[in-house]
């Protein structure tokens, strides 16, 4: 069946548009395995082909190579049968291959139209903004993307910004569109809208590559799915021929454990208590009452929600990184509103940050120094401001051993060269060795292998048993449902509801995550 794309050549539905054979990629350095290992992959006209895998499986890297942003180490790439070698994304675009990245690649200060002009091949001294705005209107009508060409990107919501990204790419009339985790910043309803748009493009004859790690999306939008695990394919099949359990098994290896049994929460004292608190950065969100969250000692509170709904701001407020705009923050019965991070640390708040490399450690400092990053002022590590290397060393050794961090040495290795997993192990060790009464853990197991994830969960449960309170922020609903005593859902800066962890209903949680207000029945 022949169809016509936007204004390009006639494509046979089912024609292979883009194909990779024997693709490999290995970065120089300390990586334990190749990023991509002898991969075969193809995209056909009229289909949505999903690349499914956990974080770190290599999905983004494939897309970057196929679009020309990264270089491959080995292998062949063909566009409609012809061998190609892209040296830049521009060359990829010229061949009709376009990529929409996970992090938005927009200039916030520019308007939508100006952002699109960045990517145009126009004469130096021209200024075709009027033409661009008109064309945006036409595309908006054709595919149903709601965007105002004159709006400044920094004023737009995440969902709208992503539509701008897609528009940017559509301007080049691509035949293959690669989208990397496009729904990571969208609410479920925005995601559904996106799927409609993608379907429209596929019906137009384009080939869509959809990267995801979320099972529900895979079944909502794909024609074919390829599972990726640690850089290798685990097979490609039609979506109609498989089911969720089978794909889960292929993607994750083990089945995800259920709720971890444990004794009831023993304490009544509040470890963390926010009173109508509005974190800085969320003042404009429609939540006049602020966040009132109570976590008892010896309790694990899971905070579920799509990233970008205020979790980061909430964490900044309860760790002292940024003072809240209004309301109060109480830690262990002391009013800590607006105090410095140092005071929070001294009060007993441990913080395992989401961005471990950028904030959790000082990359250029040595392992031993990073292990005492928060403790160096205290005895026995220093005395009258003089550091005591002996004590620091023996302590660091203990932590490294106990948490199985793979480090060559303590005083000569800069943390920069360690892998993300090892850095996280050091951070976990550093934050928990004093058995802190309050632990704020943000995406603590992201990027870790199954064994390390288990170890972390057991650690949290052990600390819980000794009376520590844990605020667990994670995008992984399975993790939250396995670990939490209670689960709160955050949406647009507001707590939509709190339920018990045991026997929690996934549908209600998903509903709240999308902004629905049904109460827990």
């Amino acid at each position, binding site marked *: 069946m022949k169809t016509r794309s936007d204004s390009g050549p006639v494509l046979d539905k089912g024609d292979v548009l883009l194909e990779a054979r024997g693709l490999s990629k290995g970065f120089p350095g*300390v990586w334990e395995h190749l990023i991509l290992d002898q991969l075969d992959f193809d995209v056909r006209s009229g289909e949505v082909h999903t690349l499914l895998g956990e974080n770190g499986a290599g999905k983004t890297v494939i897309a970057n190579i196929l679009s020309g942003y990264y270089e491959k180490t080995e292998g062949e790439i063909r566009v409609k049968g012809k061998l190609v070698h892209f040296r830049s994304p521009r060359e990829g675009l010229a061949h009709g291959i376009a990529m929409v990245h996970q992090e938005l690649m927009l200039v916030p200060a520019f308007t939508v139209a100006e952002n699109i002009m960045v990517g145009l091949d126009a004469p130096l001294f021209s200024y075709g903004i009027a033409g661009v705005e008109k064309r945006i209107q036409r595309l908006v009508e054709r595919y149903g993307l709601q965007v105002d060409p004159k709006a400044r990107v920094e004023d737009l919501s995440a969902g709208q910004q992503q539509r701008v990204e897609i528009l940017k790419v559509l301007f080049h009339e691509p035949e293959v569109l690669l989208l990397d985790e496009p729904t990571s910043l969208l609410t479920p309803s925005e995601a559904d809208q996106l799927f409609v748009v993608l379907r429209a493009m596929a019906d137009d004859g384009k080939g869509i590559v959809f990267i995801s790690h979320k099972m529900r999306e895979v079944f909502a939008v794909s024609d074919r799915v390829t599972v990726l695990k640690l850089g290798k394919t685990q097979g490609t099949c039609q979506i109609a021929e498989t089911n969720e359990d089978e794909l889960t098994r292929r993607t994750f290896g083990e089945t995800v454990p259920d709720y971890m049994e444990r004794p009831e929460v023993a304490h009544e004292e509040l470890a963390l208590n926010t009173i109508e608190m509005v974190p800085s950065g969320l003042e404009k969100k429609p939540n006049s009452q602020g966040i009132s969250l109570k976590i008892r000692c010896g309790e694990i509170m899971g905070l579920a929600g799509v990233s970008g709904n205020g979790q980061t701001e909430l964490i900044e407020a309860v*760790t002292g*990184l940024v003072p809240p705009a209004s309301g109060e923050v109480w830690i262990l019965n002391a009013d800590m509103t607006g105090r*410095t*991070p*140092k005071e*929070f*640390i*001294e009060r007993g708040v441990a*913080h395992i*940050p989401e961005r471990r490399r*950028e*904030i*959790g*450690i*000082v*990359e*250029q*400092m040595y392992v031993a*120094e990073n292990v005492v*990053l*928060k403790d*160096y*002022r205290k005895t026995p590590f*220093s005395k009258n*401001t*003089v*550091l005591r290397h002996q004590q620091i060393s023996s302590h660091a050794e203990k932590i490294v051993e106990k948490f199985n961090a793979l480090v*060559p*040495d303590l*005083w*000569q*290795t800069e943390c920069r*060269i360690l892998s993300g997993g090892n850095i996280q192990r050091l951070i976990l060790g550093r934050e928990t060795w004093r058995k802190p009464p309050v632990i704020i853990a943000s995406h603590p197991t992201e990027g870790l292998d199954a064994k390390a994830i288990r170890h972390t969960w057991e650690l949290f449960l052990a600390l819980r048993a000794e009376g520590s309170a844990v605020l667990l922020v994670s995008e992984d609903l399975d993790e939250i449902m396995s670990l939490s005593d209670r689960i709160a859902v955050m949406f647009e800066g507001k707590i939509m509801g709190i339920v018990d962890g045991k026997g929690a209903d996934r549908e209600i949680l998903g509903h709240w995550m999308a902004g629905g207000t049904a109460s827990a029945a």
Partner: protein
Amino acid sequence: MSSPSSWIRNLTPITESLLAGVVGLVIGAFIMLAFGYNPLAAYRSLFVGSVGSVYSWAELFANATPLILTALTFAIAMRGGLFNIGAEGQLYMGALAAVSVSLLHLPAPFNWIVAILAAMVAGMIWSLPVALLKLGRGVHEVISTIMFNWIAHFFAFYLIANVLTDPQRGERTIAVSESARLTRVFPDATLSSGLFISLVTVGVIFFLLWRTSTGFEIRSVGYNPHASHYAGISIRKQVLRVFLIGGAIAGLAGAIVVMGRPPYYAVLSGLPQLVNLGFDGIGVAMIGRNHPIGIVFAAIFFGGLMTGGRIMQFDPGVPFELVRVIQGIIILALAIPELRRLFFLARERLAGRK
């Protein structure tokens, strides 16, 4: 994968500095050729003039002494992630403060102790506003330190001509009182005990940066202010600390110059003994890789260039300013982080062509 031992790790910056030095000297040689001078004769003069006799060594160290301190000012700021190029102005203020203590007519040893302390305080007073402007208004220290340098320049002129003037000699200030002057280490040379003060300061700063919690905080903020904030370190405190310590050291440099420099032991109008010590200090710090030990060696190198340069001016007549040109080229070469790799790449390519 095993990492190189710390000795080998230190070797990389050392080779980079040496390489940059070679690049500077080589290009300097080409410039000399362009002007019709004989580079070999010139460099021989330079070498002999700087290290050829005990006297020249003494002069070399005399030149190096204040450079060590102004370099430390810049280096500490760099370690803290800041760009303090205000040593020039801070050192003028320090020198003038030291001289004005003579007006108090204190007995020894109070006179030189107070003079040194006054100089350090003056330096701190001059660097504090820079820190405050940065913290309070976000003013980039590059702009503010240069402005303060120029303000200090003119303020110094004013003080020399109108307030601290020597009643007998209008073109300079009153002299530092005799008992307050730093002892000469070498007869005939200008080297004073100021050298030891400088070296002690080097030791103190080394200890501070790597063996104290204060130094830990400074370095941490210099590497990563966000992670430091997360870890509970106060960024404000570090900015203030770094500028105050740097200002104090630069002020000290000014005091040492004026208290240790025969025959006048005073600040001359036009500031000839002080001018450019701040900027040269920046060069020394860069070549010394912002490390106290490296700075000592780099200061010796610069000091040598300066003493040797004067001899080179007599014979074969190459102007002294060429030395500064070489310094500039070395700094440019140092700005390139991959210099060593480029060098080997270029060598391979040339070899490949043959």
